[in-house]
């Protein structure tokens, strides 16, 4: 029986207004002129300047916004593919293969999820300088091609999705472990891999602190370009809001299309930790 308590729905609608409000506000401001933005009362409805504001964002020579979108896409896709592959490999090994030191190593992986490794950013900066990678996209991609969370998540999934008999049978048939992984395990892990991929992509797309410190003016990601837009000498709010809208839109679209899977992934992840 569905609940009929109207109070619950009132509360939920209020929550929804609170959570969607700022995003709607961004859309409104991105479609207005600067004069309208600073007027009182503030505008509440979408105005007619969206396309001209968006054009101004892409034409701005200081922030390279189009380039930034492409850069974010490259960084996020490369990191996502790598995380999914390395996590599937390690997750499978931890779940289905027996080897010395397995439990200790798994404990270490879980430990990495609880340690704020971002605090090592100064030696990381020094390391990237040594490798000659500071400023470029490699520096914001390389450290994130593996993830402890991913390994743990794939292990939990592999443990229930792949019965030991399946692997034994393949071994009797003479298949190598690599062969088993690529022809049996990886296809079976696909649902979890998709969720991990979505979560990783969103995290990389939104990453800020490290890219902000290391990337140079020629290689911005979207988030870094946004911070440059907003910290300019002049305060062009409609330009900033249009940029913010463009930077946010791709993830909102991903979220609307794959919302169910993303929610499933987050709820599973929390349950297992």
């Amino acid at each position: 029986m569905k609940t009929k308590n109207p109070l619950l729905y009132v509360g939920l609608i209020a929550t929804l207004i609170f959570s969607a409000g700022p995003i709607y506000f961004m859309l409104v401001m991105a479609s207005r002129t600067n004069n309208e933005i600073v007027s009182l009362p503030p505008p509440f409805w979408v105005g007619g300047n969206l396309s001209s504001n968006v054009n101004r964002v892409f034409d701005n020579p200081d922030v390279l916004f189009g380039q930034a979108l492409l850069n974010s896409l490259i960084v996020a896709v490369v990191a996502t593919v790598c995380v999914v592959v390395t996590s599937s490999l390690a997750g499978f090994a931890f779940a289905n293969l027996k080897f010395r030191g397995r439990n200790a190593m798994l404990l270490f992986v879980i430990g990495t999820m609880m340690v704020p490794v971002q605090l090592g950013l100064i030696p990381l900066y020094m390391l990237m300088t040594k490798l000659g990678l500071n400023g470029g996209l490699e520096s914001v991609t390389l450290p994130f091609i593996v993830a402890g969370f991913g390994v743990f998540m794939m292990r939990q999934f592999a443990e229930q999705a792949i019965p030991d008999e399946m692997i034994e049978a393949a071994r009797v048939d003479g298949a190598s472990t690599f062969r088993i992984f690529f022809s049996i395990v990886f296809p079976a892990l696909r649902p979890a891999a998709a969720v991990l991929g979505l979560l990783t992509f969103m995290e990389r797309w939104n990453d800020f602190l490290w890219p902000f410190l290391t990337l140079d003016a020629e290689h911005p990601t979207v988030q870094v370009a946004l911070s440059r837009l907003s910290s300019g000498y002049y305060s062009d709010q409609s330009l900033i809001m249009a940029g913010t809208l463009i930077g946010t839109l791709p993830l909102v679209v991903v979220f609307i299309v794959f919302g169910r899977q993303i929610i499933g992934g987050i709820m599973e992840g929390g349950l297992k930790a």
Partner: protein
Amino acid sequence: MRIRDRFAKTEARVAPYAFVSPFFIIFAIFGLFPLVYTAWVSMHDWSLLAGNQGYVGFANYRELMQDSDFWRALTNTVGIFLLATIPQLILATVLAQVLNARLRAKTFWRMGVLLPNVTSVAAVGIIFGLIFSRDYGIVNWGLGLVGVDPIDWQGHRWSSWFAISVMVDWRWTGYNALILLASLQSVPKELYEAARIDGASAWRQFWSITVPMLRPTLIFVSIVATIGGIQLFTEPLLFGSGVNAISGGNSGQYQTVAMYLVQQAFTGQRFGYASTVAWVLFLIIAVFAVINVALLRRIKSVD
């Protein structure tokens, strides 16, 4: 045939290590090494441009203890952390309880709650910077309708802390509610049925069943919130504007420790000193995580 068998055996023995090694190698280079090396750099006079200027022992740590800018940043960080986290956990728990009811359009409500988390931290800082703007922000306009004079949100300590906490909570409350919801769903419904038959009010059910059952998850959520909250950086950075945003307001009223760290490292070019800040921040996170667990352990579990 025997050679092939032996090959297969070796392969089966080596493969697991080959499969887990990418994670361990990359993590060792780009995660573990920098974190540990931070302790080493913190014992040196180390400049961004000139490099290592020699070993100084604990001199950086002694200087940090006397550094009033650091203490101010630490006060801001802990203040914002508490101001954000306590209401957030309470709201998330209530919201989880609401979402656990037998609702129509379940997925729709869950997506609505999670929507803010999809927005990037940078975008959140920018949007709320405008919402809390002194002269034409929607918050001050609303306050004006009920006769409150405009507040200079960035200008004062408490008001800036409040605005930044709102940003943090906006982005994370729904996310945490979903994690708590996942754990609520494993609570047997009979427990609530029995309580209802015994005449327990909704409020009573919440405190005597929901909260105790959620304890392990609340501990997990609060540790994650601690790790993130103590490292708060982007929201306060973008809440301010202009080229000097890293100083967190004109008297540092909302500069967090992570902002101070970056300022020391890159504006001040003092890598050694900034590493000291990082290492102390690491210890503070550990201490807060332990306090959190100790506090939440005191919630009675259901017998």
